[in-house]
């Protein structure tokens, strides 16, 4: 029975993970957090996460280029790390995103992406 805490613990087990959180992207609020955050500030990281997701979802045309197309994840690459944002699709009304911050050297983007997909699905699948 993976709960929210459990999901974040497993996210931290991804090679190179520095921090993880689940963020409500309508309000930019970190629903749950673990590990470190950029600038030691989970609240600011959540607000930034929300801005990025909203920009991708509402202000860009490629998300809705094909009927029933859906935003799945976003990857921001910096010199020092990867910031992975995976949307958590719940049946009930929510706007949640799983955020993992990876170290650039230790992290493996493909592995992390795959693991996050599984985590986000397991979190809400029966």
């Amino acid at each position, binding site marked *: 029975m993976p709960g929210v805490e459990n999901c974040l613990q497993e996210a931290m087990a991804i090679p190179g993970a520095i921090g993880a959180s*689940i963020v409500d992207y*309508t309000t930019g609020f970190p629903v749950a957090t673990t590990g470190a955050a950029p600038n030691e500030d989970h609240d600011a990281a959540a607000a930034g996460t929300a801005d990025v997701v909203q920009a991708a979802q509402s202000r860009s045309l490629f998300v809705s280029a094909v009927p029933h197309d859906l935003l799945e994840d976003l990857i921001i690459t910096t010199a020092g790390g990867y910031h992975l944002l995976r949307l958590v699709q719940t049946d009930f*009304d929510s706007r*949640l995103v799983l955020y993992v911050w990876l170290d650039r050297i230790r992290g493996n983007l493909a592995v992390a992406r795959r693991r996050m997909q599984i985590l986000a699905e397991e*979190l809400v699948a029966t």
Partner: protein
Amino acid sequence: MKPSKTAAPGRLLTQAAGERQTGALVVGGHPGGTVYLIEGQVTYAESAAAPGVGELLTASGRLAARTWQAALDAGTSRAQVGRILLDHGHLTQGELELCVLGATYDAAYFALSPASAPVDFLDGATHWLGPIVRVDPAAVTREARRRARLLDEIYPHPQLDTAAVIPVPRPPVERVTITAAQWELLVHADGQRTPADLAQLLGRAGYATIQELRRLAALGLIELPAARERDSDNPDLVRLPRARGTAVDVRRPALSPGDGPTVPIVTGPRPAPASGDPPGPAAETDPATMHAPRLARRKPGAKLPKEVAADTGQMHTGTDEVLLKRIRTALRALR
């Protein structure tokens, strides 16, 4: 129970949390709400303006109404509704936690945002959902304040949050771009429904609904309530859905037979009946017509509210007249 006093709900929550109390902080007023604490930690919150866990799960089709009702029937008295849903495999732990967290922060915004309101603390009261999550009260109050600020950054007109939503008849520009959520709101705004009504109807978070409505107002796609108030002496159309099942049902007054229907009543000279009007007494014999305005919107399969179920045999004379007036008021508002 201590008598109700007027205070800042957020401050009282902090105080109750500091004393590690268990119970329910009941905030009166409109929309009001209740925040539940166990040993000083917030476990749940509910408000008339925010759909609860049950509404969110059934309106989205995640749970069938009868599944939810069965869990309520079995778990309400033992405060284990959440536990039962998990044990029966209807929901995963993650889903339920996320749903409860979302509903709690949503309702807490409405309960805690008034600067001052009548507040009660019910010692020892617990919610029928049972403890699913525990949240730091300081985080809840901080988030409620932050959300109020976010709304004002979008479009600083708080009167939009409670007034009936009226789409403008014609967009102010040639071309508008709206999101799916905004479309849904505009399609369901019938000139009578308040943001709280729309949130309940669509099973969407109350705060997210208000956020989209403020954005729509900023785009000029829904009317500002202030503009409407000036040109009419009509009664206020602000209407909240009635209180739903709560563990601590202290806000709902006992309904006496003399109570009128909960619709705005026009106190002006009565218009002369038009020739096409149906005769009054004929409509009075129809029980459906009698009770229509008094029923809050319910989920399919949900039980009738107690007070309605109890007095189905009772006739309120003149209800059809009130209903007609209400329709007239609604039409006028649409003009």
